[in-house]
């Protein structure tokens, strides 16, 4: 028999209490693992959708608040600010610009309130601008009443090229001209329309949500930005996708702060709970520990037994917590997507991204909690005098 076997056999003396303690530790590990996975997943999804997915180097938007621009570009947010199409003429001659893609984006919630669809009016430049714009089937709009479907929407709507699709909100039927390949970003869940059609549908003829721009020399992005800005009035903003991504993240910062604060208090409560259980476990056995002192257990031997017990509890809790996190991540993702994030990021984006590094961080934090919780009772009981064994209560 070794120390860890001795510690394990001590723990199984009170199976129910041990099980409840392990459950509480596994819940802590689970919450920690999920929150960290969610934080990374959400941040990465926003970055991938906005920074990498759109394929633009710069965005021209209008309005005083960058958040408005982020909202419009990310998910078709409603804003009274718009860009008149005449602006396109003004930037046409900017030398550092490679492609210009004007777009009109808006979202419509279905009449049953169950789904929010995002429509994006685009011009042919989208094919050059978006690196991931590839047709699975079909191709560009043959007429104004046609639609190109993102890969996910095509699956959800069960439509193929040539099929008709009826949009109840506009009481209008479109013909599917093309279906895009999976881009694994927001595009997968979008309806793409000809720009003019999109503008007409929401009575915004000649008005754009924003203009996406790609530049000749990405290393001179700041120069391009200045150059474009010099051609525009003061109330126009020229933003990088990173800035928009950061704005979206800033929008969620208060939520994230609350989330981490709740997590912090959960960890504190958990530490206190584990400490309380270990204290109870130890004090019930104080005479026994005193006896162990009689038969030659040193301060370190007793301390080691308690720490081993705590480590066994923590390791078991960590394994259960992280495994549950991995197994339940898709379920949790569905829940989070439904109630928290909806259309800010694409439906195909992984908003919970567990990983080995997160598992390691979780393991480290929970082990520290376990050791912290065990240290006080371990030190306290290690100092017990052997006399306690024979003292009658």
């Amino acid at each position, binding site marked *: *028999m*070794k*120390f860890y*076997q*001795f510690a394990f*056999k*001590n723990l*199984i*003396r009170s199976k129910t209490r041990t099980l409840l303690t392990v459950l509480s530790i596994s819940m802590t590990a689970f919450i920690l693992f999920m929150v960290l996975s969610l934080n990374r997943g959400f941040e990465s999804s926003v970055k991938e959708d906005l920074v990498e997915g759109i394929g633009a180097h710069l965005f021209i938007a209008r309005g005083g608040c960058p958040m408005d621009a982020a909202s419009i570009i990310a998910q078709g947010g409603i804003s009274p600010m718009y860009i008149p199409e005449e602006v396109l003429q003004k930037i046409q001659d900017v030398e550092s610009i490679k492609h210009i893609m004007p777009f009109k984006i808006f979202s419509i919630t279905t009449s049953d309130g169950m789904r929010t669809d995002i429509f994006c009016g685009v011009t042919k430049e989208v094919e050059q601008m978006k690196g991931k714009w590839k047709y699975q089937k079909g191709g560009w709009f043959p007429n104004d009443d046609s639609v190109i479907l993102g890969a996910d929407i095509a699956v959800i709507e069960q439509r193929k090229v040539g099929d008709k699709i009826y949009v109840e909100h506009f009481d209008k039927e479109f013909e599917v001209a093309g279906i895009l390949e999976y881009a694994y970003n927001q595009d997968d869940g979008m309806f793409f329309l000809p720009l003019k059609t999109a503008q007409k549908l929401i009575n915004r003829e000649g008005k754009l949500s924003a203009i996406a721009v790609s530049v000749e020399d990405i290393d001179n992005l700041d120069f391009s930005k200045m150059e474009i800005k010099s051609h525009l009035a003061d109330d126009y903003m020229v933003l990088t996708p990173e800035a928009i991504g950061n704005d979206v993240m800033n929008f969620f910062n208060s939520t994230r702060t609350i989330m981490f604060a709740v997590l912090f208090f959960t960890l504190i409560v958990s530490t206190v709970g584990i400490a309380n259980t270990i204290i109870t476990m130890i004090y019930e056995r104080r*005479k*026994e520990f005193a*006896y*162990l*002192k*009689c*038969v*030659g*257990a*040193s*301060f370190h*031997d007793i301390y080691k037994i308690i720490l081993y017990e705590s480590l066994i509890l923590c390791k078991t809790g960590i394994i259960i917590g992280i495994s549950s996190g991995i197994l339940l991540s898709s379920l949790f993702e569905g829940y989070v997507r439904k109630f928290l994030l909806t259309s800010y990021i694409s439906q195909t984006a992984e908003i919970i991204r567990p990983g080995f590094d997160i598992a390691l961080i979780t393991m480290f934090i929970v082990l520290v909690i376990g050791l912290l919780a065990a240290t006080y009772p371990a030190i306290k009981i290690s100092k017990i*005098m*052997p*006399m306690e*064994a*024979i003292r009658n209560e």
Partner: protein
Amino acid sequence: MNNKIIELKDVSKIYRRGSENICAVNKVDLVLNKGDFCAIVGASGSGKTTLMNLIGCIDNPSVGTVKIKNTDVSGLPQKDLTKIRRDTLGFVFQQFFLIPTLTASENVQIPGLFAKNTQRIKRAEELLDLVGLSERIHHRPGEMSGGEMQRTAIARALINSPEILLADEPTGNLDSENAKIVFDTFKKLNKAGLTIIVVTHSKELAKNADKIITIKDGKIQTD
């Protein structure tokens, strides 16, 4: 040749209870030699357990010196006392202090774990055989009788091959038949050269010892 293994000189133990001083052991002088089988008898509260605690390095004397194998242990730090308790002394108490989820063999091994005794598994089996429990090696305390549990506790006290075995009311929780078996085991161990000190209130059982010390009001009456 100096055969003394335990030597108490002018030892007193005074406890303070409220404003009152209680002298549990009062100016005791005692010498025990290697291989002695000694019974300490006395009424409840006479000071016999306190005397055993002083001999067993569980408690420190208020006055006087306690020598174990010619080493004065009275003022030693806990670390050194732990070593003496682990390597030189074996303890058996009225309560068995067996861990319910461990088998007899595993319970016996525990002090060996602290002494880093690499032969502890084999030694535990030998000792359980010695106390007549070779058939109970893999049984847990809940599956054993009181007598068997106490014999397991005796085997555990012997795992680190101590030179002195201290037993405090070892038959206190046993019927007369099991009490006799325990004392027979002590006699067997004593014949093999082990020094044994047993604290008991039973004069009948004390007769099994070679030397009987009667203690009253903290003072030795007969030696």
